């Protein structure tokens, strides 16, 4: 625009990195070992069924992988229906693109703007045998649906008893997490609110390949699943994804990198931050760090975590959401409660997480765990 042009050279960026930074550099998604940059690495992924390992792959970002999983689910099961605000034209993050055209407006449709309505509607449909995949436009807007999720979805099977009904067919998708400028209401990561609720499974994938397999597992699962998608990865994370339909196991963590000195436990986008920090700290100190992706946040895979901590004796949990009463608190408590694991601990369990505040626009970079904070925490747990 003409009349703004002169000031462009002196313009301030709203997100940038400091010139002499060594740790807090932008994540290079094109090089990170957490994404499968080649077909071979994609097909060698743990937990993939044998016939998928012999198949082909395609480069996809996260929203395309979600779209691929949804399209697969619609194709293989006529009971799958997909709906939410602005879903018809493809959704504000493009996850449902072309699905309404391809599968028809009866199966893929816009709802009026009401999260409590969307959730109640989804629960009713699931209770009568459908497999609804409901989209909440942002995790920050799930709260009107909280009653339906906590009091209805989670308790349906328990309440119905031997009448035998449940809403196991239900999957709820929602984008979550910070993107640098989302402030109070476009940044939240409310997973811990749901991990407090028995009856719900809570899943957060780290990558396109993981998302496709975990989302298909969630849709096929006979428990209601909250599926949280780190929205910063929708476009940023690109990798080779198997073209065949496949599921990845729910409630099973994955060791992304083996190590012997420290265990770092995380999920979702912060795994990339952890990986950068680990690369630096391994180079600087000549140690080796194990990195674990929880994948399912509840009910979570204690066995994998305990085994790792029994080996390393030092552990930190990293997440973006507030530190208070978060996933870190649950994991740390479980670790110290398990006698065989407690006895191996060489240092207190550390948490690197958001502070106990709301996500402030300008200060997000000081709040969301960054490479320097994870790096520092690894050093602290070693120095104890």
């Amino acid at each position, binding site marked *: *625009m003409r*009349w*703004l042009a002169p*000031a*462009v050279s002196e*313009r*301030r*960026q*709203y997100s*940038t*990195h*400091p010139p*002499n*930074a*060594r*740790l*807090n550099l932008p994540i290079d998604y094109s090089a990170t070992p957490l994404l499968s940059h080649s077909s071979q690495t994609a097909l060698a992924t743990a937990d993939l069924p044998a016939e998928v390992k012999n198949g082909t792959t395609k480069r996809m970002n996260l929203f395309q992988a979600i779209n691929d999983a949804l399209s697969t689910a619609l194709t293989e099961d006529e009971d799958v229906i997909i709906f939410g*605000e*602005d879903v*018809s*034209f*493809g959704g*504000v993050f493009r996850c449902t693109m072309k699905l309404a055209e391809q599968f028809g407006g009866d199966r893929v*449709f*816009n709802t*009026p*703007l*009401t*999260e*409590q*309505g969307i959730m109640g509607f989804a629960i009713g449909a699931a209770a009568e045998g459908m497999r609804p995949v409901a989209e909440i436009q942002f995790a*920050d*807007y799930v*709260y*009107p649906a909280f009653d339906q999720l906590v009091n209805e979805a989670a308790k349906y099977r328990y309440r119905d008893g031997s009448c035998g009904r449940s809403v196991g067919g239900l999957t709820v998708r929602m984008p979550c997490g910070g993107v*640098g*400028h*989302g*402030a*109070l*209401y*476009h940044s939240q990561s409310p997973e811990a609110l749901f991990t407090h609720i028995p009856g719900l499974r809570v899943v957060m994938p780290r990558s396109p390949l993981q998302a496709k397999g975990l989302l298909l597992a969630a849709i096929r699962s006979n428990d209601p699943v909250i599926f949280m998608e780190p929205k910063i990865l929708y476009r940023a994370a690109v990798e080779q994804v198997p073209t065949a339909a496949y599921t990845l196991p729910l409630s099973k963590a994955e060791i992304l990198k083996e190590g012997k000195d420290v265990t770092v436990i995380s999920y979702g986008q912060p795994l990339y931050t952890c990986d950068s920090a680990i690369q630096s700290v391994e180079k600087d100190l000549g140690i080796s760090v194990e990195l674990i992706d929880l994948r399912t946040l509840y009910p979570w895979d204690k066995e994998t975590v305990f085994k790792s901590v029994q080996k390393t004796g030092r552990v930190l949990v990293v997440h973006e959401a507030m530190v*208070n009463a978060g996933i870190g608190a649950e994991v740390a408590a479980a670790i110290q409660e398990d006698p065989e694991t407690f006895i191996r601990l060489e240092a207190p369990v550390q948490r690197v997480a958001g*502070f*106990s*505040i*709301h996500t*402030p*626009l*300008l*200060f997000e*970079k*000081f*709040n969301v765990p*960054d*490479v*320097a*904070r994870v790096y*520092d925490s690894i050093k602290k747990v070693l120095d104890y």
Partner: protein
Amino acid sequence: MKAGLARGAPLRSAAGAVRHRPSPPTTPISARHPVRCSSSISQRQGASHLSFPGAVKSAFTSSLKFALAAESPSLPTYRVVDQDGKIVDQSFKADLSDEEIIKLYKNMLLISIMDVIMFDAQRQGRLSFYMVSAGEEALSIGSASVLEKEDVVFCQYREQGVFKQRGFELSDFMNQLFANKKDPGKGRNMPVHYGSKELNIHTISSPLATQIPHASGAAYALKMQRINDPSLPPRVVVVYFGEGAASEGDFHAALNIAATRSCPVIFICRNNGYAISTPTLEQYRGDGIASRGIGYGIDTIRVDGNDIWAVREATKKAREMALQDGGKPILIEAMSYRVSHHSTSDDSFAYRARVEVEDWKRRDNPISRLRKYMEAKGLWDEGKEKEARDNTRRDVLKAFSEAEKEKKPPIRAMFEDIWEELTPDLKAQMKQLREHLDKYPDEYDLGDFEGGKNSLDP
């Protein structure tokens, strides 16, 4: 067993708990509420009207007939001036001086020019987000122009005209948009989440419709405060929201509770045809949002939102009515068209045809409508238009560059106002951050923030 449980209500009285409780003292407030006491309505023999407690004015009929939604007539749309700026309400007399009319026009112009500049500024990466209100300038400026300063306002996010009309300066807009140290939101909120204590406008919250029941409660507060202190001026609450937001449960709760508690609140729905990509046809069935008001027992009007005179007349009258009989809610549904993309994050041509938008722009525009009216009265001409536009653009750009240059709020602001006081936990976290910034100075850019890392000191 739900029904059985409900009928189980007498259980309590059977235990004697209710029957022997003394009746509560009557307060002056309850006297002001029409109290419908079910026991006073008895089904008399040969009555022609229903006397169930849930419907007291319904006549008996012997013909089995459903009320067909499609057959109930649409509420008309009130207008004063047509697309060409010609007066169609012959009873209408402008209640403003020529200067005041020109002032309203200039405010509309200012909003629309600021919108274009800020939208483009976002495209250049100079702010993270923006939302324009193109096509809705008459609605926001017209309605706000008949309110009192003491009235309390809640907005959604597309009401920059309300802020301007109530006294927000360009510098106020810009300080918020650039989240600088003069932003009362202390750099915490996304752009366009304005707020002003002085102008009695609560700070905008992104979650839709949450502000609508707030307005009902706030109106009840104003009503109670005036009962307690009759020297206070009569005040109303005004709340704005989109037709999409009106699908949320909060909208329905807000209307219902305002009706039952007789709250002096004016609900103003901006029906602009879209909620992001969702057209009204997929948002609701029935006669718009107006029909909901009637359903809740709320006096309602639909107005042409592109006609600033109609919006003014309707809001003026609504304010009067809202203050009658101890207070009551009013619903205004103002019809318009969202000419712009939803926000800078949206490309609306992914879901609507470009020609649809062009048609609207050409056919009807609230700014050109008032301009035609003014030209017909000899108040305005091409020269004045050019001068006003040039001046406005200059003023916006000046405020823009001043605000952009300002320092950012102190980092400390991220920890404050969570609770009234910093908790020991938060103090420890602040200290932790301060020590971390000391330890890793090269990893952070602190220059923009007022006071740098020192603001984190206790």
